[in-house]
């Protein structure tokens, strides 16, 4: 069995009418919950909430805020060494303090869960249908056949195409989105009272995230369960939750109805979190950087708070009502947060000296028809080649001095492969790479090494990109010694670099594991800048960081560009970040660039249906607009990279293709479209036979 065929969009219930009148009795009730890991490591400190039937509570927080510990405590899945205090009641029955055997009777039946990583939550050696059926048999005592039939029914409900066939398959045969659907099917198998979903869509691409959220919505309506949705993504909460609880340093610092909290946040942390999000609509306000660690005494947010009072240091403020419908915030200075736009000073705009027009600036990187195929082999003794993964399948782009080209696409589209191919500075399988006018295929080893000074890289994961056994100073020294900088100059240069990226001199003697994520990424940037390159390739440089830290790193990159005239090739999957930082954007799908052009042109009027779908799939952190929008999630999964469809590669998922007549469709089916100037666009080209500049939904009133 291979990857399932493209899925039709799941049957949607258009208006989110609650199936049941929300009963007054809460289903899941948590009061004064404390979780302590080791003495002194208090992950959750006195959190309480109640969710009613059919209600969705969004729990939002950054890494280390205690949101996952909260989920595990609710489910009774904490490790033995953790200590839990407080109360977790499911329809009035206390769950804390029960034995694992007793809890197992509740878990999976009345209280279900969906985790972030569905692959590790499914058993690899059992058929999918059997795993769902097992949940039903364990709790409901159904016969084998009846449970199997019900499993297939559930799989159909969550929109798995060919459910009966997939039920006989194994987890590894499914895509991430499909596995998450299976997890949801298991979660609703026994009509649970409540579902706890911990980052259920974080590992998924935006288009798949949209599908899975839709399925979760269907599941909620089918079972009427209460849902606790734990996430770091304010956009997901805006569209999906009824109420929201913001966590910081193990406490709920603000909670209330979603619309109210998003419109009038009163805790400075919530206000900062909202403002640190980059906006897809490129709104006037820039993302607000908000870095720092929680305090251990007094209000934990005090060190980062712009409206801090002396009273804040005296003790943690209790949650107090600040608005209608149970809107509470734990803040001393709610008087100052009356006007949220006045709480944080506006970030200073990055001053850019005017650049000459694009065609006058020299190109620093030119890629023409680049191809990178990974051959696939099969067989144990004799390895035969059985085709190739077409990671990069003929892309062309150029980056000119001082500008940023964003390269966006979903996982597996080939964007990182393309970046690595450029960084290799070798001879490409096909096509040509020219860096600062030099063809990489014709370089000698010495020229290649010299060229590396001008072309540097920053990686995604600041935890993996720094050698854990080297101090920061040694990490920054390495490029300098490699390229023969005189020994006497090195210590000064290291200090200069630290200052350049906003770190302190004493950071030089630290090891990477003693730094925060944001600080590590700054070290990664400093290493890349050590040799004063003119072109930086950035592989998702902010994707692994918390939103409040993201804004700071993005701002640093913009400042460096303005000051040093750097050119960036910025690979990302987050379209909002690209909107903020990039001048031009290239959208990749299945190893190809399907649309390329100036950011404004592409975001305001995407000509390729895939670009449009990507933009539409990004959840928008505004509950009112998010609820008003008509959802048409892009069908299907990203395709198998070794077998592109005939003709246009996007055709099987294309919403525009569906509306064409037979004659028009033939063109899509037979001829692979090439990039052509989009209608109306100045600097915008799209690879579509029927391009049209469509207005994305968030532009419409």
């Amino acid at each position, binding site marked *: 069995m291979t990857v399932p065929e493209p899925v039709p969009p799941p049957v949607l219930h258009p208006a989110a009418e609650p199936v049941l009148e929300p009963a007054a009795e809460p289903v899941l009730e948590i009061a004064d919950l404390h979780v302590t890991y080791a003495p002194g490591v208090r992950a959750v400190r006195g959190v309480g909430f109640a969710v009613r039937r059919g209600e969705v509570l969004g729990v939002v927080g950054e890494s280390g805020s205690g949101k996952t510990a909260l989920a595990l405590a609710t489910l009774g899945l904490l490790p033995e060494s953790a200590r839990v205090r407080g109360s977790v009641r499911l329809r009035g029955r206390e769950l804390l303090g029960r034995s694992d055997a007793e809890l197992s009777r509740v878990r999976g039946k009345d209280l279900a869960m969906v985790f972030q990583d569905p692959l590790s939550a499914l058993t690899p050696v059992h058929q999918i249908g059997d795993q769902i059926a097992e949940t039903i048999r364990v709790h409901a005592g159904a016969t084998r056949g009846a449970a199997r039939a019900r499993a297939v029914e559930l799989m159909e409900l969550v929109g798995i195409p060919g459910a009966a066939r997939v039920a006989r398959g194994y987890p590894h045969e499914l895509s991430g989105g499909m596995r998450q659907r299976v997890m949801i099917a298991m979660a609703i198998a026994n009509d649970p009272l409540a579902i706890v979903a911990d980052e259920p869509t974080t590992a998924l691409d935006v288009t798949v995230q949209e599908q899975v959220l839709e399925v979760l919505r269907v599941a909620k309506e089918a079972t009427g369960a209460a849902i606790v949705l734990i996430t770091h993504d304010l956009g997901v909460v805006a569209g999906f939750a009824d109420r929201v609880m913001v966590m910081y340093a193990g406490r709920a610092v603000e909670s209330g109805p979603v619309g109210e909290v998003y419109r009038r946040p009163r805790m400075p942390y919530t206000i900062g979190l909202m403002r640190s999000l980059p906006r897809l609509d490129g709104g006037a306000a820039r993302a607000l950087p908000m870095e720092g660690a929680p305090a251990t005494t007094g209000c934990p947010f005090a060190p980062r708070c712009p409206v801090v009072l002396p009273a804040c240091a005296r003790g943690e403020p209790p949650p107090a009502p600040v608005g209608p419908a149970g809107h509470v915030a734990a803040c001393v200075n709610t008087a100052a947060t009356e006007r949220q736009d006045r709480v944080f000073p506006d970030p200073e705009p990055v001053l850019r000296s005017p650049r000459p027009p694009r065609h006058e600036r020299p190109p620093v990187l030119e890629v023409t028809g680049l191809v990178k195929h990974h051959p696939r082999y099969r067989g144990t003794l004799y390895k035969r080649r059985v085709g190739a993964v077409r990671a990069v399948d003929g892309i062309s782009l150029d980056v000119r001095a001082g500008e940023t080209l964003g390269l966006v696409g979903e996982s597996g589209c080939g964007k990182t492969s393309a970046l690595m191919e450029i*960084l290799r500075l070798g001879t490409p399988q096909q096509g040509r790479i020219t860096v600062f006018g030099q063809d990489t295929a014709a370089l000698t080893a010495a020229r*290649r*090494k010299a060229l*590396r*000074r001008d072309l*540097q*890289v920053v*990686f*995604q*994961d600041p935890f*993996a*990109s*720094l*050698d854990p*056994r080297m101090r920061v100073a040694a990490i920054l020294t*390495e*490029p300098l010694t*490699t*390229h023969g900088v005189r020994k006497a100059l090195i210590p000064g240069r290291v200090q200069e670099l630290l200052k350049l990226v906003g770190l302190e001199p004493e950071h030089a003697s630290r090891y990477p594991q003693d730094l925060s994520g944001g600080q590590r990424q700054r070290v*990664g940037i400093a*290493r890349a800048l050590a*040799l004063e390159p003119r072109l930086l390739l950035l592989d998702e440089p902010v994707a692994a960081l918390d939103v409040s830290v993201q804004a700071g790193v993005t701002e640093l990159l913009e400042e460096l560009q303005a000051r040093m005239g750097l050119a960036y090739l910025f690979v990302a999957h987050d379209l909002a970040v690209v909107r903020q930082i990039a001048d031009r954007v290239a959208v990749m799908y299945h190893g190809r660039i399907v649309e390329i052009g100036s950011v404004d042109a592409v975001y305001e009027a995407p000509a390729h249906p895939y670009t449009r779908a990507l933009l539409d799939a990004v959840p928008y952190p505004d509950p009112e607009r998010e609820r008003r929008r008509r959802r048409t999630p892009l069908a299907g999964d990203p395709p198998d990279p070794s077998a592109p469809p005939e003709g246009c590669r996007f055709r099987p998922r294309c919403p525009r293709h569906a509306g064409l007549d037979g004659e028009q469709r033939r063109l899509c089916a037979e001829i692979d479209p090439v990039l052509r100037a989009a209608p109306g666009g100045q600097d915008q080209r799209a690879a579509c036979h029927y391009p049209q500049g469509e207005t994305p939904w968030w532009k419409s009133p």
Partner: protein
Amino acid sequence: MNRRTRAGLALLAALFLLAFAGPLLSPWGWDDTDFAAFRAPPSAEHWFGTTQSGHDVFALTLRGMRRSLLIGLLVAVLSTGLAALVGTVAGFCGGWPDRALTFGVDLLLVLPSFLVVAVLSPVLPGGWPMLVLLLAGFMWMVTARMVRAMTISLKEREYVLAARFLGVSAPRVIARHILPHLASLLAVDAALNVSVAILAESGLSYFGFGVRPPDTSLGTVVADARGSTTAYPWLFGFAAGLLVLIVLAVNLLGDGLRDALDPATRRTMP
């Protein structure tokens, strides 16, 4: 450092001290002959007794032990070093160097090493240093394959990629970013190789292939006692006992090191 490592280290240190400082305590040299005592049992005069020809067994055993320890250490260092070199080069370079080296490793692995060393060591010149080379030459392959596999995964780490894209040369990347991460594995491997080498050397020497008279090792001491094991147990008992102690000490040290360095086997500290 845990208790086992400490015990192993203390035992090994004591054995080294005995091997190298022991002769100072006894008036007898290994080639002295006491014509008043042939096959004398252990006594105040001859602590481990004497041989058929009146040699002091204590002096002979310590001489054999020095040789065995030296061979063990050298073989371990050489074979682990070779394994590190071949493994990292094959893993890091990939392509044809990898294929060639892996083929060589697989070829050596299928040879019956004990037989080959037994056949070659008597005919090759060079005495015990040649034996060291032969033993080392047949002990590095499994480690090399392990090192190669780990290098391949380390090579894709972002900090290694970052160094390569900075233009750092391959030998330097291996030395600075890859070897330090293999250090714990290699240390454990070298420690365990010491005991394997000493056992192999003793076995070969016992059969007359490894260290040959007039040179002495623990194996030859035991071999000389062949035929009189029950009647004159002191002739081989002390040598065999020390052999067991050496292997025990080294294995304790190796296991302890592995536990201390490998987070996967680390137990929660009390």
